């Protein structure tokens, strides 16, 4: 199916096509639809294709891992999924919205409402308490103060950090920091939880603990996308997409 889509669009390259949202055919559980996504970087005289024609779909509630060696284009793909960037070509539908045509502020809104990020280096605000870090998406979502506190506390309790709410990141261990980051990602009830090498900066025991947390969150119905180059981490997911040289090499259901 993947190859077929690629072929079609390569034929009609240059022609403006306005595809319909795939869910219109009745698949209401379809969360992500990537249709022939290209990402091209202009490096002066040369054009570098980070992705050339990637297509796949993700349904609500999936636990997906995206793997690939460095330089394979998996980071580029993650940035696109997370709406930090838009594709050079192709369409990306997220929860019924065509993200590929959005401007900066619309993307910010989508990130705020639909995507929860978990980063390798946690990316917490150093000067803010755990609670404030978790509140951050709600602040930009315009949630009033009292409601915001309540939701942030709820999210922190989901990651077992109720007793560390008023601590700053430098007063927390790596695992605790990552759990704060996960709480921040969850607090706005996003459509997808997008984790980029979430265990990359953690020791084995803590990695295990974090992966268990992801498992628990998936069991609770969250859609999770892991980006990792570690096979044992990817093996915890239910479906693995392997990227190589800007193309999907393998897309297999392992569980």
């Amino acid at each position, binding site marked *: 199916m993947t190859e077929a889509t690629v072929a079609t669009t390569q034929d009609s390259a240059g022609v403006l096509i306005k595809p319909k949202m795939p869910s219109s055919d009745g698949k209401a559980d379809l969360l992500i639809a990537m249709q022939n996504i290209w990402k091209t970087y202009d490096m002066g005289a040369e054009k570098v294709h980070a992705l050339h024609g990637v297509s796949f779909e993700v349904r609500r509630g999936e636990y997906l891992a995206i793997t690939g060696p460095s330089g394979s284009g998996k980071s580029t793909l993650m940035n696109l999924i997370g709406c930090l960037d838009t594709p050079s070509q192709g369409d990306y539908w997220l929860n019924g919205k065509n993200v590929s045509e959005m401007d*900066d502020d619309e993307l910010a809104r989508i990130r705020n409402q639909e995507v929860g990020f978990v980063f390798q280096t946690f990316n917490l605000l150093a000067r803010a308490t755990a609670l404030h870090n978790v509140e951050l998406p709600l602040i930009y979502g315009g949630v009033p103060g009292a409601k915001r506190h309540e939701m942030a506390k709820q999210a922190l309790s989901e990651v077992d950090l109720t007793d560390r709410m008023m601590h700053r990141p430098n007063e927390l261990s790596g695992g605790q920091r990552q759990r704060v980051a996960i709480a921040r990602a969850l607090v706005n009830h996003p459509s997808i939880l997008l984790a980029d090498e979430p265990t990359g900066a953690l020791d084995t025991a803590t990695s295990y603990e974090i992966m268990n947390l992801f498992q628990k969150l998936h069991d609770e119905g969250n859609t999770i996308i892991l980006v990792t180059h570690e096979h044992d981490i990817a093996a915890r997911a239910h479906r693995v997409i392997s990227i190589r040289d800007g193309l999907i090499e393998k897309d297999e259901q392992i569980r």
Partner: protein
Amino acid sequence: MFPRSESQLNPPLEQTVQRRIILPAKVRSLSFLRIAAVWEAFLVALSSLRQNKLRTGLTLIGIIVGVTAVIAVVTIIKGLDQTVAQTFSSQGSTVFTVSKRPRVITSREDFIKFNKRKDITEDDAQAIFRLCNVCWRSGVAANDAVPVKRGNQKADAIALRAIAPTAMFDIDAVAIDAGRFWSETEGASGQAVCVVGSDIITNFFPYETPDQAVGQDLWAGGHRYRIVGVLQPLGKIFGVSRDERIFIPFATYKKDYGLNIVRGTFNTSGSLVVFVQTESSDQLESAEDQVRAVMRNRRGKTFKDEDDGFALETEDVFLNLYSKATSNIYLVTIGVAAISLVVGGIVVMNIMLVSVTERTKEIGIRKAVGARRKDIMTQFLIEAVMVTAIGGAFGVLTGFGTAWLIALAIGFPLLFSVWSAALGVGVSSIVGVISGLWPAWRAAKLDPIEALRAE
């Protein structure tokens, strides 16, 4: 392939929206709820400024200097305005003077020219009194500076003012505190009497009240005078006391010192000043015309002569000069303030650019979790405005402080105006907005991916 039932795991779209409606989209887009983001920006700005106290302080200096200058000058001039208005309105707009030289001479050439003029003599005064029928009261004054001595207390040059008739006290707008003015008879017969300003008592009779000083003797210019009266204090103007002077009858002065003896460059002892007062200010102009005609005639001036050969002035001359001087001071101050605000603004812009660079990662994080361009923009603008507004507030305080110190030194009423304080803070806030715009814009349009990669 999926661990749970279809209905549980993949709720229909409607239901999903329902689940997320804890924060209804409609409510989220309402602009008043952006207050949360603005408040966040405010707190972040505050903590950032607190974090970098030294840097913030140094950034503030330019703004503080500019605002201080404006506030100090405005406050001082407002105070002086009031002093000047009170001083000159005391003589009223019914008085004008005829003298050899104008009171204010702005160039050396003028000074030489005016010095070549004929002195105003008693004959001139008599002619004015006789021929001016619109004039109500008039008098002559001779000003001198003489050494004064009383016991061990000595001073080299005290202002001596010889006047006639006693109506000149009224024209001079002085009032008696203790004792009395000399009588018309005493004055006309050249008695050795004097009326002194309050500072004379303070300086020469330190242990006596004005009442006790009355009747005692004072040596001025080698002559002995009996004090018959002490004047109420007039206060200072531009830091110069108006109470350190001695009044003696004109006839006494003529007897003791003689006329037409120039004892110094600046005293007018050789030349008199004629004072003329009309009954109402409406008559002032016609009185001036009459006196000018009389005097030009006496100086042998025809229509062709531009120069009168004497100076006919009302107090307005002084007021005009004063307002011209203060408007120049205002202009210079505005210039100084503008320059320091521009420099201050550039410093703020520079610091904000540094701040944006330092916090690139933070901007990336904020953008990743949904901060829009205008949220980031607001954050840095608020920070810039906060710096400059604090600078402005400090400037207002130091400006008022400076004005207060100067008021203390030279003595004028202090008028703190809320208006100038608001202007000081307002203008510096505007400087903040202007100098914060570009850094804030740079922060706002940072690419979140790049920003997150920053360390």
